[in-house]
């Protein structure tokens, strides 16, 4: 969840902080950020978009090339390109760190399809952070959140079982052991709610009976 949050919002938040809300950054950090950006020719938004596109290209190249070479290309590409970009004075070192953390966070999302959606939405939040700071990101979250809440698949809402509230199935936030999940998810409206018979872990009952005898 933390990875999903940073993977989606970190570049946008960085842009919002540096462009609109500098008062939130501690003075020492602000000074170091300003120093690192002194000699750079591009605005921070352009830098961020260039770095994000470069990251996506490296990732795509790594996926396309088969086997171990793909991973090697990714690592070499990131190291060489990042080092060269900083040395050439095209991007600031802080931006490299932000892009790297964002990339790692997006890889940490277990659902691959969700990670794809995050990659696309990340660009939207960079844009929103650039035009209106935290306010823009808040409005964007509101809009995308509303759209997510309106999504349905075969009549089942995407945000089930958080809302609408249905009978608990003990697998939403904290997952109980499989033998404790005796019923199918309520929000799926299945004809038969029971997932297992009553004899789950029957050996336990037999043991307890045996002990009594």
């Amino acid at each position, binding site marked *: 969840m933390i990875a999903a949050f940073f993977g989606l919002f970190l570049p946008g938040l960085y842009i919002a902080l540096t462009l609109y809300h500098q008062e939130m950054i501690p003075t020492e950090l602000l000074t170091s950020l300003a120093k690192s950006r002194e000699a750079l020719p591009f605005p921070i938004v352009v830098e961020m978009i260039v770095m994000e596109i470069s990251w996506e290209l490296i990732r795509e190249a790594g996926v396309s090339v088969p086997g171990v070479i793909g991973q090697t290309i990714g690592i070499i590409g990131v190291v060489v390109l990042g080092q060269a970009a900083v040395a050439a004075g095209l991007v600031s070192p802080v931006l490299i760190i932000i892009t790297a953390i964002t990339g790692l966070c997006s890889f940490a999302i277990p659902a691959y399809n969700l990670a794809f959606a995050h990659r696309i939405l990340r660009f939207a939040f960079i844009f929103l952070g650039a035009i*209106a700071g935290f*306010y823009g990101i808040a*409005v964007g979250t509101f809009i995308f959140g*509303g759209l997510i809440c309106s999504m349905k698949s075969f009549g089942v809402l995407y945000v089930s079982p958080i809302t609408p*509230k249905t009978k608990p199935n003990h697998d939403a936030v904290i997952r109980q052991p499989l033998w404790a999940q005796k019923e199918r998810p309520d929000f799926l409206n299945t004809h038969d709610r029971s997932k297992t018979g009553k004899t789950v872990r029957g050996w336990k009952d037999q043991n307890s009976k045996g002990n009594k005898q």
Partner: protein
Amino acid sequence: MNKDGKFGPNEAIWMTIIAITIKASFSGPSNLAGFIGNTGWYMIYISAAVALLGFAFIYLVLKRFPENNISEVFELTFGRVVGFIFSGILAMYLLWTAFSGAGEFVQIIKVYNFPLSPKVYITAIYMIGVLVMSLLGLENIARFTKVTIYFTMTGFVVIYILGSQNFNTNNLFPILGNDLGKTVTTGIVRSSIFGEVILLAVFA
């Protein structure tokens, strides 16, 4: 059981709480301190009691007409013409609340975040969000409230915990403040901050 096309009491209650909490938190304390002194802490309870009376009245009406919304109740009880007038007044009240709420929100954003940006720019961004959510409908707004409530409430609690270093119990006294009458009057007048409860009545 997943019931398609409706939001439950759970979502409705959270939505109302969010609407009221935001209004009470942002628009109150400093104004109140200048207005009625140190009695602001229990003036809010007077406002809540008055709003509760109003809502109890609406609840009784809706209980009497379980299948109808409030504008249909107006039409059934007062007839077509007078009912239409009352429904129109209610619609205008809601429109006025929306406008004043939007204006207040833009003012706050301008003061806190964007002192140099023109108001029209802030309002335009706000209106885009409102427009999209209006198109999606109240059901999705309520659902989104339920999804985000855990984070929002954590945020509120953290704000109050961080502000706790400025709490001073001596400020609660003298208990009657400068003028009890003024406190009660202000409490009754400011009961409109709980007006969002009408959301439940209109869409119940």
